[in-house]
């Protein structure tokens, strides 16, 4: 209930108390009135307030019960207040099944229910608070599946780069399939597209989508695109249903989800192997661009040719380098230095042998020319001179010369006596003088 409404209630209550007091004082002395009269009075006050005749209230349903009479009774509440409500003939007028906990938007009036002496909400129109309610459900399911690990990166399958057969689960008459086929035709016309027609909005859409995804598994697809074009959150809702999320998760074909526009995120987007912002974007992800691939092949072709040309040229260059070497052109240069070396050795050899011979023949010549060979007397003469010299030296030492100076020489039995001990008494000795010998006897 809005704050505004509560203030208004409070105001009315005050007004009512003031009037009641006045009323009571008026009648106090006069008469007692019935409960019905009081209630009527109160009821009239409610009815006289134009704002209460047409209220717009949002709140959460509780104790909602559809009676066999066809009326719906319920309590509408928020965190602080509550108000009873009733919708007559609800069974024919309701477009949804009211459930406790559901957020609803109600248009109606507030009146006093005299039987129970309380005010209540009479519903003219009731509808689920779509956005608020859906948002909560979305967050709840997202949290649940996240905890179960359905969004884990580890489960994500790789989308094939060069698919040959792509499946699409979407409406056969929507813009999505048209966009997808157009895009694939333009980018990668080698690919087959198989449509698995499905409802994409309404109550039966979720189970239908799920059925078609399972069915697609039998068609040997490389990639599966699941999605639809843009719409309101209610339109896209089937892609937020648990059954769709689980079927996508279980699908063995890599799944690209493509629901609505860039800004729309659905549970399918989280659980799919890849999320595309739009169906066109899904087709662009699903197939490679022909032109770029063609260029890539051409480039690889030229790079291969260039690489091999470079290598061959490199070898050629090395060969040319070797062949053009000076030595190859002038092979004599290989042995010319050796020849020179040989010549050098030969010349040195002949020079040295000549010089050896020359030296020795000189020596021979020298020998030949020596005095010995010129004069035979030369040697004899030289020796004679030497002999004479020796003789003169001998002359100095001659003992006879000593005798000439008065000395005498004593001999015994022909030997010179140099000591007195060599002689004994009676020995015959010979004394030699310069001019003759004397024989005598030792006494």
């Amino acid at each position: 209930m809005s704050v505004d409404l509560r203030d208004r209630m409070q105001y009315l209550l005050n007004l009512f108390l003031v009037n009641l007091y006045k009323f009571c004082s008026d009648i106090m002395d006069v008469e007692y009135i019935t409960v019905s009269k009081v209630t009527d009075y109160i009821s009239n006050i409610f009815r006289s307030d134009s704002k209460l005749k047409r209220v717009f209230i949002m709140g959460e349903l509780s104790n909602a019960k559809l009676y066999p009479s066809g009326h719906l009774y319920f309590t509408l509440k928020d965190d602080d207040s509550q108000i009873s409500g009733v919708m007559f003939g609800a069974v024919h007028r309701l477009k949804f099944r009211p459930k406790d906990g559901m957020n609803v938007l109600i248009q109606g009036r507030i009146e006093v229910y005299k039987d129970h002496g309380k005010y209540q909400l009479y519903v003219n129109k009731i509808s689920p608070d779509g956005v608020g309610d859906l948002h909560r459900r979305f967050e709840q399911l997202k949290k649940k599946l996240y905890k179960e690990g359905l969004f884990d990166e580890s489960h994500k399958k790789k989308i094939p780069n060069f698919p040959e057969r792509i499946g699409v689960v979407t409406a056969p008459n929507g813009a999505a399939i048209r966009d997808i086929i157009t895009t694939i035709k333009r980018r990668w016309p080698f690919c087959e597209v198989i449509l698995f027609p499905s409802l994409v909005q309404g109550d039966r859409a979720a189970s239908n989508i799920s059925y078609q995804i399972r069915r697609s598994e039998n068609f040997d697809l490389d990639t599966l695109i699941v999605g639809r074009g843009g719409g309101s959150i209610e339109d896209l809702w089937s892609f937020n249903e648990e059954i769709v999320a689980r079927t996508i998760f279980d699908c063995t074909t890599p799944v690209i989800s493509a629901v609505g526009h860039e800004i729309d995120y659905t549970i399918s987007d989280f659980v799919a192997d890849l999320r595309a912002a739009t169906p066109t974007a899904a087709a662009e992800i699903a197939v490679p661009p022909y032109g770029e691939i063609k260029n890539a092949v051409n480039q690889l072709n030229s790079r291969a040719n260039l690489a091999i040309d470079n290598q061959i040229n490199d070898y050629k260059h090395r060969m040319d380098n070797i062949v053009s070497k000076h030595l190859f052109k002038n092979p004599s240069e290989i042995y010319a230095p050796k020849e020179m070396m040989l010549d050098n050795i030969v010349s040195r050899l002949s020079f040295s042998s000549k010089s050896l011979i020359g030296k020795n023949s000189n020596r021979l010549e020298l020998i030949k020319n020596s005095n010995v060979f010129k004069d035979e007397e030369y040697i004899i003469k030289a020796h004679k001179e030497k002999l004479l010299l020796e003789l003169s030296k001998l002359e100095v030492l001659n003992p006879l010369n000593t005798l000439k100076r008065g000395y005498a020489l004593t001999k015994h039995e022909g030997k010179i006596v140099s000591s007195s001990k060599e002689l004994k008494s009676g020995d015959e000795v010979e004394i030699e003088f310069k001019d003759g010998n004397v024989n005598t006897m030792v006494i």
Partner: protein
Amino acid sequence: MADENTSFEDNLKELEEIVSKLEKGDVPLDDAINEFEKAMRLVKSCDDKLKDAQDTIAKIVNENGEIVDFNVE
């Protein structure tokens, strides 16, 4: 070996590997020439596939599970 049965993707990948190897220039000439010939076969195989551009075939699986042609519009 460029083989009709290997996928376009495998052929393209092998071609890329061979070209990078050739560009390094450290493959002995005899091997390089073999690799080059292999690369040329792969280029041809990829080109053949790319020339083979038919119009995208769009089909629909009907309620009976039969695949029939699907025309947009």
